[in-house]
């Protein structure tokens, strides 16, 4: 080692050189770290949310900026493996980007509008479904109308408290069924409770009994009962009868059924011998 070089590195000049080198290294390191921190901070401040719902045989993709750093949507990764290149405008806070795709989107690549080198790949959130009928309170009232021989019954219904137009009726007749009962089953889709009227009659005798049972054991009490016969008809629970033996007993029963109930309406007819 030459004495000149030794003199330089051990003298004040050497000291100054050392300090300059050290400062340059520390400064360079800090600058690099600062660049890295900026990158990570920009990446952290990206707050995109991507969602998808199935729509019209394809998929409806939506991306929203929930943060304050603007970004652009660059690519959409589809389930089939293909990549859809998109070039959205810069999305600021609460702005959306929409796209319809044929295949299921599974991830989206977004890049910062401040520094396009800062990008993030985010998963696309899937969907859930809710039954519309259950939200609207729409349900089914299933009725089995069973009518004994010699009777007939007309069951009519109408939805209460709404102009949804749910109404109808069914007539079941066992007038000429030679001993066999007749039955019908009806299912009514209703947005609310149904007002049901049962009108029944016995062609040969003076007695009609209506029994309504539901599988969950609820007892159904009529709102209104109308019991009519040519001669003194009177009503005892569930039954309409005449004091005298006469036919054409008319019996009306009104009650309310809530959606999602199954009812068996049995019109019994006792034939006097």
């Amino acid at each position, binding site marked *: 080692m030459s004495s000149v070089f030794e003199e330089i590195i051990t003298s004040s000049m050497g000291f100054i050189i050392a300090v300059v080198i050290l400062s340059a290294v*520390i400064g360079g390191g800090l600058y690099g770290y600062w660049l890295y921190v900026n990158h990570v901070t920009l990446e952290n401040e990206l707050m995109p949310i991507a969602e998808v719902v199935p729509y019209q045989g394809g998929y409806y993709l939506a991306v929203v900026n929930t943060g304050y750093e603007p970004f652009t949507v660059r690519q959409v990764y589809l389930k089939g493996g293909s990549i859809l290149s998109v070039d959205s405008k810069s999305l600021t806070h609460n702005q959306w980007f929409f796209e319809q795709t044929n295949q299921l989107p599974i991830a989206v690549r977004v890049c910062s509008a401040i520094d396009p080198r800062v990008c993030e790949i985010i998963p696309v959130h*899937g969907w859930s479904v809710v*039954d519309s009928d259950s939200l609207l309170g729409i349900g089914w009232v299933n009725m089995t109308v069973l009518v004994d021989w010699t009777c007939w019954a007309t069951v009519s219904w109408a939805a209460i408290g709404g102009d949804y137009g749910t109404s109808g009726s069914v007539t079941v007749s066992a007038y000429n069924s030679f001993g066999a009962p007749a039955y019908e089953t009806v299912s009514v889709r209703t947005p609310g409770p149904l007002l049901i009227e049962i009108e029944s009659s016995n062609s040969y005798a003076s007695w009609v009994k209506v029994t309504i049972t539901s599988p969950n054991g609820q007892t159904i009490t009529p709102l209104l009962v109308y019991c009519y016969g040519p001669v003194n008809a009177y009503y005892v629970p569930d039954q309409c009868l005449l004091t005298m033996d006469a036919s054409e007993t008319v019996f009306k029963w009104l009650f309310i059924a809530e959606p999602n109930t199954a009812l068996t309406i049995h019109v019994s007819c006792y034939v006097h011998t």
Partner: protein
Amino acid sequence: MTTKTRARVRNSGVSSVFTAVIMALTIAAVIAAIAISWPMVKSSFDKNSWAGSMSLYKLNFGAKDGEIYAYAQNGVSVVVNDTPGTVGYCITYNGGDYIYYSCPSNTPSYQG
């Protein structure tokens, strides 16, 4: 004083200043590193709390006068139409028998 002794004295003086300068540079570097790191640390915390709040973000539905309404976390409510629309940070539409919706709390689509 001999030449040798002078050299030792001079060298030890330089090494004291050298130590002081190194320490000053180290302290300055550490303070600078902490100051530079702060935005990154803060943004990391922000991102974590954001991810936490998003994982709970969902929609509620209700009906009024035969129309179905979607209620978002931010108090916004809209009528659910048959074309996709946004409610808060969710999207939803009425597909007839079913209401479809997707929110930040939904599981990723690749799992479905």
